[in-house]
């Protein structure tokens, strides 16, 4: 309850009904006994200088590079990746590729033995909202092929019509996706927002791609003899994944 105030005035010599007295007294007593709210707090009683410092955690750092900061009213969690010596790249022949279906970026990093990071975050969420962003620097490469016939030699990007799509999953539920992106190098800023309950949670980045079977491309023989000079590929160049958990 908030402040109580007089609702029933008792006059000298007047008749008093029991609720006239009881409700007035109960109101004052409840307030005194602790049923208080923001109205009873002095203005600016609590400011930022009273808020406790964040507690940091790297419990899942070795798994996916998560760095967590649990703050008073919110938590921030982040993982990042900067391209190192191991190139995070996949093409048609990669075992993770099984048609146009979601592939975990974390699985690709692990498969290649690259340093993990930027692909997944794991942390203890508190009930409230989860809002964040996946920042993905990637090159969706079209692949290159050469056609030789009696006219001469020509070159073409055999996968120029094929797409990639990126998504963010919270505990295996898709919460944000990019839509189709045609071949190019770019940094994608993919925001997401979702309610969350109190539990350990995993947020991860996945992608799905349309790789053309090189063997089938080489059968476009009506144009001449086709040689694939470079396979279509997806290269993850770096980025970060972060989440803000605003507590309820």
């Amino acid at each position, binding site marked *: 309850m908030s402040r109580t105030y007089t609702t029933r005035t008792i006059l000298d010599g007047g008749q008093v009904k029991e609720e006239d007295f009881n409700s007035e007294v109960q109101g004052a007593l409840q307030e005194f006994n602790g049923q208080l709210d923001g109205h009873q707090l002095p203005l600016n009683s609590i400011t930022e200088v009273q808020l406790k410092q964040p507690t940091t955690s790297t419990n899942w750092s070795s798994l996916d590079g998560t760095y967590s900061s649990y703050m008073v009213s919110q938590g*921030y969690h982040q993982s990042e990746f*900067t391209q190192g010596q191991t190139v995070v790249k996949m093409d048609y022949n990669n075992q993770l590729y099984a048609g146009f279906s979601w592939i975990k970026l974390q699985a690709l990093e692990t498969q290649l033995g690259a340093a993990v990071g930027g692909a997944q975050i794991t942390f203890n969420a508190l009930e409230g909202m989860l809002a964040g962003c996946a920042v993905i*620097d990637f090159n969706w490469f079209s692949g290159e092929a050469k056609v030789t016939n009696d006219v001469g030699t020509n070159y073409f*990007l055999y996968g*120029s019509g094929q797409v990639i799509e990126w998504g963010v999953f919270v505990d295996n539920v898709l919460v944000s996706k990019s839509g189709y992106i045609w071949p190019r190098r770019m940094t994608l*800023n993919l925001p997401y927002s979702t309610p969350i309950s109190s539990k350990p949670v995993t947020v991860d980045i996945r992608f799905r791609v349309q790789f053309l079977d090189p063997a089938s491309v080489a059968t476009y023989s009506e144009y001449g003899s086709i040689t694939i000079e470079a396979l279509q590929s997806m290269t993850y160049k770096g980025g970060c994944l*972060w989440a803000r958990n605003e507590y309820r």
Partner: protein
Amino acid sequence: MSQVTTYIWRAEAGATSSATSANNIYGSISTASTSINEDNTRTEAISRRHLYDLSQSPVGGHPTFHLIRSKSNAGADANYNNTVFADIAHGGGASEAFAPIILKPGECIRLQGSFNMKSCTKGTDGGGNNALDTDTYFYSFFLNIGGVLTQVSPSFGYGLLANSGSQNSSYQVDNSSFSDKIQGKLIVNQREAFSYIYFNKTNADQIITEAKVRFRVAVPLGGATANTVNLKEFCFVILGAR
């Protein structure tokens, strides 16, 4: 004591009222008022006594950090062809200086940038190499930490070509792409956005005085010269969190 637990006297219809019974309630409040304690606070409520008063710490040791800054530009443009990260200077510059803030361990700064890459002038081919062999360009966030301008985020890369990364000039003339705006075989005039969170992951306070977005183009292969990218409108936002 603090709460009044013996106050129950309920006026009842038809009963003779007693001044003593009624007044006792107020007497009990008067008595309890002298010993107000946590019982007078709703259990789930927060009050100053639940908190550590950091203002009592030595001067400068308490957190003063809560920050929102933004910088935007709507019209000016400029060309950039540095191959190492350099300031974005047009339209007031994509940098923001502020009174020193103390970033304590575990606190973070959120950085967000959005730029319009307006156009590109291809560099000069030469030495058997093409300027577009390295067609990429990069943005990155920098913070001035303890007086040292430091790159804090990864480089966020973009390509001018649909087949970025190809080093065969025969393929670089192919401008096929179904979704992007291609002008002169280059993907230009597009809005680019990126974000990053910088944590103080050290065990010591950090003094932050400036935040920037910086820009560079890829280093050309031998004989060729760097591409020149024209940047126009931008928005740069810096948020502190704790």
